[in-house]
């Protein structure tokens, strides 16, 4: 019933929608022209300072009230102690911090052997090699201790995020009101730039590992909630009925029917939790979390490219290992043994892992190098690599290319584009965005766009917000120029599609921070480096979804096109791309989200956007300002997210795609 009314309205809409969008566009253009002619009054170009409300101040007042008067600070500081205790224990086990239980650190050989066995159990020799190899590399390159600092936080954050996410997911699935309450918060949380997580964490949970762990945990919770709810909703009706007919009570249903049936989605959630935790824990270097991130930050700060590169490799290897292992766990099915299989045979892998662990632990008491690779014993080639990279960059043609790119892109393209965007009067810009939302999605999205960008204007950070937006748009446009042709080419053959998808999948697991390394290497600390790092980061989802979209075009449609005598090009333009467009749009959306995320991180290189302001707030206690800035970024990202996702969903329905 509701569906019929819906399709009726959306059928009647397009004419109005298009005309309305066009007229909005016309008004925006008119305003801009008047501005260029110098006739626009100043207050219409930019909101005057006087009318900008002091959001930051208000937020500060609220925070202070909650923090001090309501005693939240006391509460969180108490929590801190518990968390600190956990972190200390895990720190002791992983890298021998002198705290209870005082048994650590595990020797690197023992841990490596145990992890390799787990890898073998989950995914055979290749995974064993990857897992073992990663740890051996980490140890040999002399980064064992900092890597373990990072891992020790993961060991606490991941289970915490899992438990909290799972419980909230179950609650949201069970009670509609929880779902309604959580959903908008989740979509904002997922678009909030990570800097926004960091400051509150610092204020409420002290600087250092505790705050880092809290920020990491919170950052990783949303996907766990979503995956849990999704998995529980997807349990087939018949399985549920079978459970009921078996006489399950409510708790038995959850414990024996729902949760095990949702195993796959829940484990996918675990995979995402692990990957997000890793991405975030590296970034918490900004608030003084020791570990790989901090080291990378320090090395990049002092332009030691060789060492940065080595740390980058470690992070990437760690990410790929964790990703592959948790994904292997998702598809790992229980295997059955014939009756009467002895205990040792059933638990062969467990016994092997424990045996190796004990063996190497004992060995390392006798042979010190098996316990720890000391200073000067490692094989780091940092300085040599550094020289090599710098020599490479000094080669004439490389220098000429990067120099040309820098000069050409900056002077001819980027700066004019930025100045143009800055020259558009605020109301015109908001109308522009509204027209975009209206044309693609609908009235509701257009209204959201006006409200969201209206807030950004009121926040007083308009110019910086526009610069942020400029970086995002410029990078995504360039990413599309590179990514789309690549993807279309790759999608022509099955072999290349698979290869390309593998590359994208792998690249997506890299913590965003490492994307800065090549950018800085090639372009130094410049605007181009920022755009470049965003571009690389955003190209990945674009390629991925484009290939996915092209590949999932139903074969009977392409066959029909072939039989109609379409050439390759005709088939591509008339059949494949139109059908792949909704999926490609999702890729675009993700590229934009990623770009918003990266542009904030790139602030580290030194930009003039919101990210830099955000980073500045970390130094102090400007909680209010930090939030206002974070929300500005989130709202801009949300506008695009709402619009594009709505468009993709509409289009999919219209095309009758699943």
């Amino acid at each position, binding site marked *: 019933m509701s569906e019929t009314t819906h399709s009726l309205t959306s059928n009647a809409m397009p004419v109005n929608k298009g005309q309305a969008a066009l007229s909005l566009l016309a008004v925006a253009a008119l305003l801009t022209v008047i501005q260029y002619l110098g006739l626009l009054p100043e207050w219409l170009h930019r909101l005057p300072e006087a009318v900008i409300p002091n959001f930051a101040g208000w937020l500060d007042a609220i925070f202070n009230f909650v923090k001090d008067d309501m005693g939240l600070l006391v509460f969180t500081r108490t929590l801190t102690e518990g968390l600190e205790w956990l972190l200390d224990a895990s720190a002791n086990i992983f890298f021998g911090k002198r705290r209870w239980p005082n048994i650590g650190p595990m020797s690197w050989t023992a841990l490596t052997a145990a992890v390799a066995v787990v890898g073998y159990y989950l995914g055979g020799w290749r995974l064993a090699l990857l897992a073992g190899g990663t740890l051996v590399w980490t140890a040999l390159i002399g980064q064992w201790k900092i890597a373990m600092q990072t891992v020790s936080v993961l060991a606490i954050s991941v289970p915490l995020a899992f438990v909290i996410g799972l419980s909230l997911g179950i609650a949201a699935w069970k009670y509609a009101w929880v779902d309604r309450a959580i959903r908008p918060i989740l979509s904002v949380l997922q678009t909030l730039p990570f800097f926004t997580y960091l400051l509150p964490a610092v204020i409420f949970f002290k600087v250092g590992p505790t705050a880092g762990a809290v920020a990491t945990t919170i950052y990783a919770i949303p996907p766990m909630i979503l995956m849990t709810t999704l998995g529980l909703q997807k349990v*087939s009706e018949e*399985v549920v*009925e079978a459970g009921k*007919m078996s*006489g*399950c009570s409510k708790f038995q249903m959850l414990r024996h029917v729902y949760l095990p*049936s949702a195993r796959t989605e829940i484990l996918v959630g675990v995979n995402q939790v692990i990957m997000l935790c890793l991405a975030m824990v590296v970034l918490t270097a900004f608030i003084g979390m020791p570990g790989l991130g901090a080291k990378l930050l320090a090395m990049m700060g002092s332009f030691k490219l060789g060492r940065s590169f080595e740390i980058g490799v470690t992070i990437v290897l760690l990410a790929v290992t964790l990703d592959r292992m948790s994904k292997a766990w998702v598809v790992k099915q229980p295997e059955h043994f014939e009756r009467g299989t002895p205990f040792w045979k059933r638990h062969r892998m467990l016994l092997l892992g424990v045996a190796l662990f004990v063996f190497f632990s004992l060995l390392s008491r006798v042979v010190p190098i098996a316990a720890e690779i000391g200073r000067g014993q490692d094989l780091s080639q940092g300085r040599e690599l550094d020289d090599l990279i710098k020599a490479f960059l000094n080669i004439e043609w490389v220098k000429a290319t990067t120099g040309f790119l820098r000069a050409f892109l900056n002077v001819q393209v980027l700066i004019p584009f930025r100045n143009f965007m800055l020259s558009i009067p605020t109301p015109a810009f908001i109308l522009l965005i509204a027209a975009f939302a209206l044309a693609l999605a609908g009235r509701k999205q257009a209204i959201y766009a006006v409200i969201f960008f209206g807030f950004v204007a009121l926040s007083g950070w308009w110019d910086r917000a526009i610069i942020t937006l400029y970086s995002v748009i410029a990078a995504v446009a360039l990413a599309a120029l590179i990514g789309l042709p690549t993807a279309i080419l790759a999608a022509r053959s099955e072999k290349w599609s698979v290869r390309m998808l593998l590359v994208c999948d792998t690249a997506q697991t890299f913590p965003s921070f490492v994307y800065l390394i090549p950018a800085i290497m090639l372009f130094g600390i410049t605007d181009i480096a920022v755009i470049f790092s965003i571009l690389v980061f955003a190209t990945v989802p674009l390629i991925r979804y484009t290939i996915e979209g092209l590949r999932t075009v139903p074969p009977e449609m392409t066959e029909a096109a072939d039989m109609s005598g379409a050439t390759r090009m005709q088939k591509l333009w008339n059949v494949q791309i139109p059908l792949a467009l909704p999926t490609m749009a999702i890729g675009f959306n993700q590229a934009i989200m990623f770009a918003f995320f990266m542009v904030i991180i790139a602030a580290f290189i030194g930009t003039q956007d919101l990210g830099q302001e955000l980073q500045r707030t970390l130094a102090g206690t400007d909680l209010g300002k930090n939030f206002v800035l974070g929300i500005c970024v989130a709202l801009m990202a949300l506008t695009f997210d709402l619009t594009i996702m709505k468009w993709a969903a509409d289009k999919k329905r219209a095309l009758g795609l699943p």
Partner: protein
Amino acid sequence: MSADTPVISCKNVWKIFGKDPKGYLESMSPGTSYDEIRADGYIAGVKDVSIDVHKGEMLVIMGLSGSGKSTLVRCFSRLHDITGGTISVEGQDIMSLPEKELIELRRSKMGMVFQSFGLLPHRTVLQNVAFPLEMRGQDRHTRRERAMEVVKLVGLEGREDYFPRELSGGQQQRVGIARSLAIEPDIWFLDEPFSALDPLIRKEMQDEFLRLQQMLNKSIVFITHDFDEALRLADRIAIMKDGAVEQCDTPDRIVLNPATEYVRKFTEDVDKARVVHAGVLAQAGAKGEGEPVDAKATVQGMARMLVNDSREMIPVQKNNTLIGAMSRKAALDILLGTEG
């Protein structure tokens, strides 16, 4: 409860889907058609159904998809709460049962088999079969023993430790059947149990099912959209359309006297000779001559005799007592089709 009380008795049962089904049903004028209800934004899943299931009988509910047959059977077990009317199981109004007693009823009296099997993917065959026993808190040893027994009964011996994904469709449904039988239910619901299977396997499973039924003699509600299957298995068939029961009777009476146009269309292509028994054709008062035929014999089974014989009226006997006689011409009409 006396012996002839129906096992399940439902009276004027309504199940309406929509925003406020209860309110809508109360305000609805009697005789509103399915399409009118639909136009008001509601779906009548079950529309004023009154039907009884007797002890030991197999009632087959037949209808096309969307006719409400699955909904009806889910009302019997209260997987769906009904909107109006009453359903009593062994004399007890199930809508008035509190949750605890409902669970108890399902744990002790009801078993159900599902179209797509509804097996728990993380449990082995044996664990799936033992699941209802586990839920009612039986200890590990007894439930294992009982589960082994049923697994053997459905012919899956040696596969106890397999996971569902390692089995073929037919084998998976055997697990589903075993699970539904584990608690020794009195009432057995089967919701299109063989529809997801290949035709050959389906035939095999139907035979298997008939064998089980002969052994266990349960009260069965069997759902199917396959009329041949219904004819093959049923004591009685209820034909449903748009949530309402069009006709409920024995297979031969349905074939001979379709109550509505819709039922007639269904029975049109059926080979009546294979369905109709001598018992139905027998006229109670009439007398025949010579050797009697058995009431259970189908017209097709008697074909050679009917063609070669010359008697006008042939006596029919049931359990060795004469119940009347059938006219040879009427039987031949069924075999060859009416002249002209």
